[in-house]
């Protein structure tokens, strides 16, 4: 019984970790893409330059979500599994 309760809390924690952790990066990547697409629409010649910087920015924003994912994975597969 106790083990089942611990497992349940573990799964809940993992779900919350990635669910809440994905909100911020989601918004961030959205804003980033909006800016990049607007810039590319206004100045199509600079597309390649904007694109490289955009991918860099997305990678930075995405890294935060990946931290949350790693916490979730550790909760699922490492702690007490």
């Amino acid at each position: 019984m106790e083990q089942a309760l611990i497992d349940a809390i573990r799964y809940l924690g993992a779900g919350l970790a990635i669910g809440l952790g994905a909100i911020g990066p989601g918004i961030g990547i959205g804003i980033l893409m909006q800016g990049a697409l607007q810039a590319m629409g206004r100045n199509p010649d600079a597309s390649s330059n904007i694109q490289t910087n955009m991918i860099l920015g997305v990678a930075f924003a995405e890294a935060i979500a990946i931290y949350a994912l790693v916490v979730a994975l550790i909760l699922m597969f490492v702690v007490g599994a």
Partner: protein
Amino acid sequence: MNKLIKWGIFLAMVIFACVWITNPIANYGKFPTIKLPSETVFSIGPLTVTNTLITTVIADIVLLVFVFRATRKIRRGDPDAEVPRGAQSIIELMIDALYGLSKNVAGNRALKIFPWMATIFFFVLFANWTELFPGIESIGVIEKAHEGTGYAKVELIPGFLYTVDQSKPIEVHASEEHAAAGQVAAAAEVAAAPAEAEGEAYHVLPFFRTPTSDINTTLALALITMTMVQIFGIQALGGSYFYKFINIPAAKQGGLGYMMFIVGFLELISEVARILSFTFRLLGNIFAGGVLILVMTYIVPFFLPMPFLGLELFVGFIQALVFSMLALVFMNMAMSGHGDHEEAHH
């Protein structure tokens, strides 16, 4: 008649698909055990060889053979090499694009940084794409489960080929099976304890696993990259490189300089954070991709995993690009001096 054959083939495919689909649906909710750390396949003295290490070596060999074969004509000085064809044109295209990128970012420092970022790109790319091959994380030796979840053993070819029945999980606690050593898929186990065969739990220890889904590989790459960032910085700026972290000249100026002095410490912290960020970005993406494909294959093993394989092809490429591009940007940032620092120094 022709139509009849077509319908026959269609019917056979539907029946085949139904058998494949209904089997996992009957076992719905029974997902495979997923392991975060890599497993030791064998060890030579104190050196343990994990399954990710084996795959790393294979990916390296494949990459080297591919590149050496593609550039064979150039090294021979063959006049045919002027017009690239086949593999050579692919390699030239990629090298050209990467060099263009590094020239864009680093300018005249590109020649120094480019070999590092291109090497990282190609290694990470090939390492990531090993994920897509069948047999990765599924072919290996069968061994007794020491702890966690094991499965009942199924004989496909007695004494030679086994599999585990994932619909019959057996919980094993660490203390019970501690003495039992892992065994190569041999018949000895069955002969030894036929009475207990019902309750014995096994799991598959895979020979191959995607290198970048192991934290050791990504951490090693991150450490190498950040070490080279520091070395390039010192090479380019000499001792004044360290003023980036401990900004003594700024502190001497007073006023806003104290602020710059404190910012230097933040720079030091962010340097460590970059190692972690490099490590977990690659690990998280590739490990999560592997889990995604595995889970999709368990829900419906037919057709459904296909788009996800395509997605993982893309993710593997993007992550290789991001890793090498960040390495490029960090190296460039370390090598470009701050103008006012130079003046304060002299």
